[in-house]
C-alpha cells in the first residue's frame, strides 16, 4: 500500500511540476467545449432566429410566385433577395456568395390556375353541377419545376431540410389554389367561407419522461457530455507520453530492478489520471453552469443528477486510463504513442457517436460503434442528462466501461510480464 501511495504521489508531482502541460490538460478541453458549443448553438440560433439569405429569380411574376415569396419571408428561415436572372443566380451560388437560389418558372401561376380550374370543372361536371360544354378542347398545361441551386459546399442535412421546407410550402400553395378554385365555382361571394382551410392533423412533441413538458434539448446539454468524454479519452495522450518517457529516461529500468510490481506502478498512474479526468469533468460542469450563461450560451441543467454524472465520468475515466496504460506499455517511442493516441481517440469519438449520431451511421459503423467505449460513455451520459434515468439503467454501460479498463490493464500487465520475464 505504501508503494502504491508513493507511486501515486510521484505521478502527482510529475504532473504538477509541468505547469504548462497541466494547463493544457485542463484548459484545452474547456476551450474545446466552449468553441464547439458556441458554434453549434450558433447553428441552432441560425435555424431558429437568424435568416439564411436566399436568391429568388421570379420568372412567373404572378400570384403563386408572390405567394411563395410571402411564405418564404414569413417562414423565419430565409431572407429572400431578388435575383437578376437564373444564370446570375447560378453563378453566385456556385461561387459560394449565396448558399442557395430558387428559380420560379415562367407562367407558374397561370398554368397552375388553369390546371386546377380544369380539374375542378371536371369534378363538378361529374357531379352534374356544371354546364356541359364537352365540345371545348382544353389544352393541358405542362408540369412546372421549381429549381433549387445549392452551394456545392452545403451539407446534405441542410439541403434536405431546405428541400423539405420548400416542398411543404409548394404543396400548401397548391392546396390553397384548389380550395380557391372550388370557392370561385361554388359561390359568387368571395367573402363567403365555404372551406375550413386550417390543418386538421397537427403534431405535438412530448418528452417521454414528462407527459406534458416538451423536450427541448439545447446545444449545451448535448455538447457537454459528448466533448467531456472526448477530453477524458484524450488523457491517453499525456499518459502514453508519460510512460514512454519513463522508458527513455531509464527510470522504468530502475523500477524493474526494484521489488515493486508493475501493477503497483500502473495503480499509481490510474489513481492520478482518473482524478485528472474527474477534475476535467467538474470543470466542464462548472463552465456549463456558470460561464455559458455569461457568454449567451444555454445553461447546463444538472439538477439532482450530479452524483450519477460523476459515476459515469469515473468509469469513463477508468476506461480511458486503461487504454492509456496499454498504449504506454506497448509503445517504444513518443513518435509511436502520440500520433497513435490522438488519431485513435478521434476514431473512437467518430464511431462512438460524438459527431454524428449512431442511428445516422451506415449499418457497419453502427455495429462498430457498439465496440467503442466512447459510445458506452456517451449513452450513459445521455441517459443521465437527457433521459433522466437512475443508476440501474446506466449499470450496463458503466459495467462495459469498467470491463474495458480491466481488459486493457490486464493486457498491459501480461504484455509487460512477457516482455520483461526473467
Amino acid at each position, binding site marked *: 500500500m505504501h*508503494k502504491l501511495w508513493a507511486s501515486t504521489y510521484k505521478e502527482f508531482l*510529475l504532473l504538477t511540476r509541468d505547469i504548462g502541460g497541466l494547463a493544457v490538460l485542463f484548459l484545452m478541453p474547456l476551450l474545446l467545449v466552449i468553441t464547439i458549443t458556441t458554434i453549434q448553438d450558433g447553428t441552432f440560433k441560425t435555424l431558429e432566429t437568424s435568416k439564411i439569405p436566399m436568391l429568388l429569380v421570379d420568372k412567373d411574376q404572378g400570384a403563386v410566385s408572390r405567394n411563395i415569396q410571402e411564405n418564404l419571408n414569413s417562414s423565419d428561415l430565409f431572407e429572400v433577395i431578388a435575383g437578376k436572372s437564373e444564370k446570375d443566380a447560378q453563378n453566385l451560388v456556385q461561387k459560394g456568395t449565396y448558399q442557395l437560389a430558387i428559380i420560379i418558372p415562367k407562367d407558374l401561376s397561370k398554368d397552375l390556375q388553369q390546371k386546377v380550374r380544369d380539374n375542378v370543372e371536371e369534378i363538378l361536371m361529374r357531379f352534374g353541377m356544371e354546364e356541359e360544354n364537352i365540345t371545348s378542347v382544353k389544352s393541358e398545361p405542362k408540369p412546372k419545376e421549381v429549381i433549387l441551386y445549392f452551394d456545392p459546399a452545403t451539407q446534405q442535412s441542410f439541403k434536405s431540410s431546405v428541400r423539405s421546407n420548400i416542398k411543404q410550402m409548394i404543396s400548401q400553395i397548391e392546396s390553397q389554389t384548389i380550395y380557391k378554385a372550388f370557392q370561385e365555382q361554388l359561390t359568387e361571394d368571395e367573402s363567403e367561407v365555404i372551406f375550413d382551410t386550417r390543418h386538421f392533423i397537427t403534431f405535438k412533441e412530448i418528452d417521454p419522461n414528462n407527459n406534458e413538458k416538451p423536450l427541448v434539448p439545447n446545444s449545451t446539454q448535448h455538447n457537454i457530455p459528448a466533448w467531456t468524454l472526448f477530453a477524458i479519452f484524450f488523457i491517453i495522450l499525456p499518459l502514453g507520453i508519460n510512460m514512454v518517457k519513463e522508458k527513455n*529516461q*531509464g527510470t522504468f529500468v530502475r*523500477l524493474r*530492478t*526494484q*521489488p515493486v510490481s508493475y501493477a503497483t506502478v500502473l495503480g499509481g498512474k490510474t489513481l492520478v489520471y482518473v482524478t485528472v479526468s474527474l477534475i476535467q469533468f467538474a470543470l466542464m460542469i462548472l463552465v456549463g453552469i456558470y460561464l455559458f450563461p455569461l457568454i449567451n450560451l444555454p445553461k447546463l441543467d444538472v439538477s439532482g443528477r450530479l452524483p450519477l454524472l460523476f459515476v459515469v465520468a469515473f468509469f469513463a475515466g477508468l476506461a480511458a486510463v486503461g487504454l492509456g496504460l496499454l498504449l504506454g506499455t506497448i509503445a517504444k517511442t513518443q513518435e509511436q504513442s502520440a500520433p497513435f493516441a490522438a488519431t485513435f481517440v478521434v476514431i473512437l469519438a467518430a464511431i462512438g457517436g460524438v459527431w454524428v449520431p449512431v442511428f445516422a451511421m451506415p449499418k457497419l459503423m453502427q455495429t462498430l460503434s457498439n465496440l467503442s467505449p466512447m459510445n458506452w460513455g456517451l449513452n450513459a451520459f445521455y441517459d443521465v442528462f437527457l433521459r433522466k434515468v437512475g443508476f440501474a439503467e446506466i449499470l450496463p454501460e458503466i459495467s462495459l466501461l469498467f470491463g474495458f479498463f480491466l481488459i486493457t490493464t490486464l493486457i498491459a500487465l501480461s504484455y509487460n510480464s512477457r516482455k*520483461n520475464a526473467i
Partner: protein
Amino acid sequence: MIQISQLSKKYKGATDFSVRDLDLTIEDGEIFGLLGPNGAGKTTLISMLCSLLRPTTGSFTINNLNYKHNKNQLKQLVGIVPQEYALYPSLTAIDNLMYFGSMYGLKGKLLKNKIKEQLEILGLHDFARRPIKTFSGGMKRRLNLISGILHDPKVLFLDEPTVGVDVQSRTVIIDHLKQLNTEGTTIVYTSHHLNEAEHFCDRVAIIDRGQIVCKGVPKALIEAHENAHHLEDLFLILTGKALRDHA
C-alpha cells in the same frame, strides 16, 4: 557471494552470443571490476545479474538465492547504479530519492534520515530541493548512486558509475564506494577507466566477446605479463588494438 555458472546470452536476431558460457565467483565483501572493450558483454552480464535480462542458458545465485525463484528477495538484496541517470528530470533530488527509496519498502523517518545522510556525504545537500534537470553531469551521477544504495544493499552493481564526470565528483564517488565496501557491501563494477579500476578493485576480470580472457588481482595480473606495466597495457595485450565499433 555471487556464483555464475555457464551463463550465456544471445539477443533475438543476433548471430553471436553477447555472453558465452561464463563461469565466475565473486566473494562477499569484494570489489570486483568487469573490464572490457565496447560490446564485450559487460552491461549484458550486469543486466542479467540485476534481473533485467533473461539468460539464454546457465544460471547464477546471489547469496544462495536463485534468480528464478527468489526474484523479490534478490531485488531487495541488490542495489543497481545504471549507466543512464535513471532519474525524473522534473522532480527534485529529494522527490526522486523518496520515490525510489519507497520502492524498496523504506518509509517515514528512516527514509528521510537516510536521504539526508547520503546527500550530505555526496555533497548534494544544498541542492536537495532543486529539479534534477538543473544538475550538472557530476551531480546527476552522484544522485544516481544514492538512488541505488538507499536500502543498504548487500551487493551493489555499478555500470560505469564515473563516466563523464570531473575528477572531484569521481573522487567523491570512489571514496564513498570504498566506505560502503568497508561496511560490508560487495561491489561489482564496470568501467573504461582502467587506472581507476586498477586502484579501486580487489579483483578484476577482463571480458572480450562475451568470455572472460583473464581474471585475478590487478597487481598479480600485471606482473604475470612481461610487457604490462599497468592494467591498460594488459588490457590492450589481451583484447588488441582493433576498434570495436558495432551498431
